[in-house]
């Protein structure tokens, strides 16, 4: 069954027709041809499709497009402002935190989500003190970024790429 929706993506509103079965990922990639988020499994197992939904990271392959409503969808491409790359874009390139680049927009959206979660004081499975402010140590970054698979295995470069921005933003010493 088709239905009319409006998706707000990277600051612009897009009226479009979707099947009620259409995922947010397919709405972006197949209908709007916004291919910044990638498809690596379609089952919530790899993280390549990660986008921010009102600032929180989600696997867009697990979200039905008709449920998005007027939430703001942000892709990695949308993290750039006024044509200027986001600090995570710069740090991922500087640290060579990818090879094929296919998992990368998802890694970057996820990292943006991690920074926000740390600022908000959300603990992770490896946080020792649940009452203290969260600091994004290497161990914290590894844990929090583990929902994003990288078959090129750039992990050891992803950690410093996220850490650089975390330090600049005050969630890491």
């Amino acid at each position, binding site marked *: 069954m088709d239905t009319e929706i409006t998706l707000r993506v990277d600051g612009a509103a897009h009226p479009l027709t979707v099947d009620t079965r259409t995922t947010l990922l397919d709405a972006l990639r197949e209908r709007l041809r916004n291919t*910044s988020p990638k498809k690596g499994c379609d089952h919530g197992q790899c993280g390549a499709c990660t986008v921010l939904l009102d600032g929180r990271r989600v696997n867009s392959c697990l979200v039905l497009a008709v449920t998005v409503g007027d939430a703001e969808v942000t892709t990695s491409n949308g993290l750039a402002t006024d044509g200027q*790359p986001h600090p995570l*874009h710069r740090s991922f390139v500087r640290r060579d935190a990818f090879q094929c*680049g296919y998992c990368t927009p998802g890694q970057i959206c996820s990292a943006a989500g991690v920074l926000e979660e740390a600022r908000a004081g959300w603990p992770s499975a490896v946080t020792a003190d649940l009452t203290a402010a969260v600091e994004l140590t290497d161990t914290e970054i590894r844990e929090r*970024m583990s929902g994003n698979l990288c078959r090129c*295995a750039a992990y*050891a470069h992803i950690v410093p790429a996220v850490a650089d921005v975390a330090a600049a933003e005050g969630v890491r010493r």
Partner: protein
Amino acid sequence: MTTIDRVLGAGIERIDGPAKVRGSAPYAFEQDPGEPITHLALVQSTINRGRITRLDPSAAEATPGVLAVLTPANAPRLSGELTADLPVLQSLDVHYQGQVVAAVVAETSEIARAAVGGVRVEYAAEEPDVTLRADRPDLYAPAQVMAGFATDSVIGDVDGALSTAAVTVDATYETPAQHNNPIEMHTSMARWDGDSLTLWDANQGPHTIQRDLMTAFGLTAGQVRVISPYVGGGFGSKAFAHPHQILAAMAARVVGRTVVLELTRQQMFSLVGHRTPTIQRVRLGADSEGRLTAISHEVVEHTARIAEFAEQTATATRVMYAAPHRRTTHRLARLDVPPPTIMRAPGETPGMFALESAMDELAHTLGIDPVELRIRNEPPRDPERDVPWSSRSLVECLRTGAERFGWAGRDLRPGVRTDGRWLVGTGVAAATYPSRRRKADCRISVDGRGRYLVEIDGSDIGTGTWTALTQIAADALHVGLGEVELRIGDSRLPFAGGAGGSTGLASWGSAVVLTARQLRARLESLGGQPPPDGLTVDGGVPGPSPHAEQYSMHSFGAHFVEVRVDADTGEVRVPRATSVYAAGTIANATTARSQFLGGFCMGLSMALHEESLQDEHFGHFVNHDLAGYHIATNADVGEIDISWLDEEDPWVNELGLKGIGEIGIVGAAAAVANGYWHATGRRIRDLPLTPDKFFR
């Protein structure tokens, strides 16, 4: 012409980096075919072996939005020259579970996927034969193994030498089937214009895919264009054509529209190949000083009933260590499995797990440090071909790695170090990979303003080709990086072999260097200035290095790891590792580090997690997605120290560059298993090192 500093070797940031981080570099499906895209979804066999007895597509055909259902009854006929699993939808016979038996084209992906359920298929199933065992009576010796290596090699009297050796090791090692699983799923988007086909495709070499499409549809090179500027990983599974490329083209022809086929992750476990499981018996004989007198490495592995793929698993054993008496063999079982294919360092990866584990066992038996044991068996020449090395720096890699890791003073005893509930150990293993050059053509043009265009059908599957090849070109042309525009990833560009076998940059780079030399000579003859309407030169390399017969050409490396095993749960952690490589010239220090790191971590992943489990009765790969087939994730990877030696090799190719795509994975799993043994005293000879194995 101005003289500028060489940019080769510099750690220049990826040229394609800014586009990739934003997600704007267009991978296969993300390119614009110039018209609306229709979607193809697959119906796959649910049996392993037998025949389709009834196939009723009517419910699917009646679904609104469905454009066509392709079946063996109505699919276009393909050339009879196609082999293995490529003659898709050409017969009612079923050879493996997951074989494509029908395909649905629809206006949207949702409609196509749902309509798959409307294709009814019935089968006459036969009992499949899928279990690999070393005592199968039907094992056979293939005519040769992959990459043109001899099936067996026998020198001297191995059995005699083993029977008189002061010390022996006799052990059998097993590696499971594994799947490449690049994160970009295999995808092909096809469009026909009259009798000409364009395929936007995820592959490791457009010319390779073009060749099979030409065969399939009886087309000329001018009628088939394969475009692949950005590819989301491959690791071997995207090297050769698989059924999906042919299906996409076939469906596009039937419906007269652009069709995309994105395989699902699950489909990638049957339709794009896998690494064969192996059973490897290694026997070593040595004198009391640890000098090897005999090496025997006998490999049993599988292939598909419909295709012979003979992985060259024991070939690394032919070059690693000196010993007067030596034997390597490969035997295959033909099973009802999908065709295996190449996966990162096919041969060396499983083979060196066995050999380097056996060397560790020998070191323990002798009470000799495993680094020292390897150094004592360093061969001055290639021990089987009896030719000199073009360069070989294994001993230096071992010594440098030991130094960087802090190996000195290591207690040889296993199972004696604890840290709370963790058992702690360290392990070492060596690595090697052949260095080869392949045919590659190249075209370089300069316009009247001194801007250079370099065209060659190379690939960047994450390997850094966009950047490293631009550096090579800039140096060879004696100009700055900004003056060179590179074009790769398109079968219309001059011929080159794909990214595979660590031959990419060695071949493409050599072609670029030689073509650039020709262009510069022409320019000099014209007084150093390009003519106003520019100049174009075609060049390249014809094939292997002319010195390949006289020298044995290989890169080498050494891995050192710390392994911790939780005595309560059996969980295995690798908190730190050191790898040192000697691979000739390094074209880009930044992207090379990522190549080495990625290779090593894939070996770590193989050691800890990777195993495609086959159901013995039904034959399919049971854990066929990323929730069931585990690969290393961020939290699995600790501190990894990657470095390389300065090594000059004048013989391998024009750049002295040995290729680095595979060596990182070779030996990595053995280092981890050796460290596991040192931590726990338990020798695990069958990968992966899952927690249950600690308790058996």
